[in-house]
């Protein structure tokens, strides 16, 4: 019978060759961010008036948060559907989510023109324009970031209780831990409600683009499609990340659990594909997917989803970690491409505008990804995040 082994820090050196490399990338990105604030967006990005949103929104925020829905997806599975055996996967998922959403928020600080006005968004609720989808996304994400870090507090409190020498800090951590234990229900409910709201609204964001968004992607079902695909991506990232962790840290993998988890993606992807094609048929756009110039991107999205589906359904009973990793990767790519297409590729403001990210823009994004990796690695080595099950 499987037992849960309590999560524990992995230990080991923080500064290794890979982490040094990541630090280098982060350092470069930091310098570029300073340059961006010193000289304005025009000098460091290829953003323009036709494409005011570029990869910092399409990737860092929209795709980045979708890839950070591991905590959400696992929350549904473990706390709503009560599948307790997946519990060991929750903490690393929540850590990835916290980091992903925090980096998305940091990307927004770099991307917006007047980030010093950000504090007004949650606090000036008398000025809220409830017609604005972005407002809901922003307030929801801000709240959710807080919720995620609160969800991580138990891990932090455990570490403090064990390893910190100051006694008052230890007792504080213990008290906080106990309080969180009692308040868990309220926090976890937010942890499922908030992503449901804003991940779907991230899709609704592009509704206002109207004729500027290609008809294949513009549909009133955008919020639902984004929500379903993001939950699937949540499981995909958990699978992918588990396999990657096992590979990097040489730990034993959780193949059976992951295999079952990956099967959870199947109904989601099936519903997603049915919804997409059904929506196109109902709106009379089925012909378009064969004729329009952007058709190859649509088909690539579908192909990636189908590939993931095939890999999962055709997986042998004793599937290896590598194959599981590829299953997760295909689904992540499919969802990522869907978001890239909705926000960038299928967005055409007309009149000769074009956009491709500039090098500093790409490097800053890379820097944020590197930061996520760095902090994740440091966290699992020093905090009780990764656990496991023993057969």
């Amino acid at each position, binding site marked *: 019978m499987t037992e849960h082994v309590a999560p524990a820090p992995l230990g080991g050196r923080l500064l290794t060759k890979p982490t040094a490399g990541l630090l280098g990338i982060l350092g470069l990105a930091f310098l570029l961010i300073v340059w961006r604030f010193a000289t304005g967006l025009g000098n460091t990005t290829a953003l323009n008036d036709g494409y005011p949103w570029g990869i910092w929104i399409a990737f860092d925020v929209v795709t980045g948060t979708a890839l950070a829905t591991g905590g959400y997806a696992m929350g549904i599975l473990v706390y709503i559907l009560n599948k307790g055996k997946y519990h060991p996967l929750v903490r690393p998922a929540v850590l990835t989510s916290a980091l992903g959403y925090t980096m998305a928020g940091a990307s927004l600080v770099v991307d917006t023109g007047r980030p010093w006005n950000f504090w007004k968004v949650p606090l000036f609720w008398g000025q809220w324009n409830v017609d604005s989808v972005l407002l809901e996304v922003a307030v929801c994400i801000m709240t959710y970031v807080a919720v995620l870090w609160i969800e991580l507090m138990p891990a932090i409190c455990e570490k403090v209780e064990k390893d910190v020498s100051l006694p008052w800090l230890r007792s504080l951590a213990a008290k906080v831990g106990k309080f969180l234990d009692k308040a868990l229900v309220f926090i976890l409910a937010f942890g499922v409600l908030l992503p449901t709201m804003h991940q779907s609204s991230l899709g609704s964001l592009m509704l206002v683009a109207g004729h500027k968004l290609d008809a294949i992607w513009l549909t009133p079902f955008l919020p639902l499609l984004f929500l379903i695909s993001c939950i699937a991506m949540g499981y995909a990232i958990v699978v992918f990340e588990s396999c990657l962790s096992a*590979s990097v840290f040489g730990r034993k993998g959780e193949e059976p659990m992951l295999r079952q988890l990956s099967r959870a993606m199947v109904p989601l992807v099936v519903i997603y594909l049915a919804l997409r094609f059904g929506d196109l048929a109902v709106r009379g756009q089925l012909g378009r997917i064969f004729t329009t110039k952007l058709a190859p991107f649509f088909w690539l999205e579908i192909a990636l989803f189908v590939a993931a589906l095939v890999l999962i359904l055709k997986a042998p009973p004793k599937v290896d970690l*590598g194959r599981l990793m590829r299953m997760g990767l295909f689904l992540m790519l499919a969802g990522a491409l869907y978001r890239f297409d909705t926000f960038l590729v299928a967005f055409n403001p007309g*009149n000769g505008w074009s956009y491709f990210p500039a090098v500093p823009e790409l490097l800053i994004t890379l820097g944020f990804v590197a930061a996520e990796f760095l902090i994740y690695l440091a966290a699992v080595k020093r905090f009780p995040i990764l656990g496991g099950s023993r057969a």
Partner: protein
Amino acid sequence: MEAWPSGTLGLSPRRETEIDRRDFVKLVTIAAASVGLSGSVAAKMAEAAAKGVKPSVIWLHFQECTGCTESLLRTSHPALSSLILDLVSLDYHETLFAGAGKQAEEALHASMKANEGKYICVVEGAIPTKDKGIYCKVGGRTAVDILEDVGNKAGAVIAIGSCASWGGIPSAAPNPTGAVGAPEILKGKTVVSLPGCPSNPYNFLGVALQFATLGTLPALDDKGRPMFAYGRTIHEDCPRRPHFDAGRFAQQFGDDGHRNGYCLYKLGCKGPSTHANCSLQRFGEVDAWPIGIGHPCVGCTEQGIGFSMPIHATVPIEHATPPDTYPPIKAEHGGVSPVATGVAGVVGGALLGAAFLASKKLTQEAEKE
């Protein structure tokens, strides 16, 4: 005031005024129109002249070349000029006076006394201020003293020419005499400045006529220059502007561009920075003006530009206006940087490749077991 100045041009007054009333009115209308005053004003002018109401004019000369007076003298068509001078009573004018010395001085003081607060004081030439102003003295008095005396008791003060307006040529670096314009001396008094080298005489005629007939002065800008003449720059009304807008410039004197009458901006034309109406109101009764004959404007009206900036140095364009080309409806914006594409490809490919390789490694390890 009949003794003088009518006929001071050496032309018998009787000859000029031997025209009938209709021609008189016609000529007055033409004179008024040329300086932008309406037909109804012209009628008033004719009426006033017929009644013999003629305001006094006291004309002071200081550091000047007399070019402005000479320019004014050449606004004839003789009948026109003397006609207009018939509308005012020129009570003191050093160039045009037959008399001199004590006689002239007495005429000056008499007129000042009789017309205190009502006469027009015209100033031609700059006023030296260094060393207590000894570099220009008339009748034993310094220019500063004369101007302070005559100017402050005048009904209106007109500074004709750049020298009187802001110092002109005498004030060019190193300005050894401390030459300044009349407004500098008569601070607190409204001084109508008519800069130019020479000042366009029709601008003067317009101001003088308006004051003589209506008792008012035209709208002035912050430097005391009448807006009707100095409100716009040469550049705004230049007939060669289409060449500027199209980017057609003369690069050297005598080249093809110069011969084709292209814009003289690159030869140092100060038109964009110079407020004056030379391009509209020409000179010499033959529509001549510097740009028209192929020489760039030197900015003679503008303090800081004329006699200060090198003639062939270009001026910056403030308030640039559109060229004569049009952007298309569908403009080409942004482009795809090949470097960025490369970096994106490399980075994306590297990350994906690494992930796939890692997965392959895991598969191989599992197969080994």
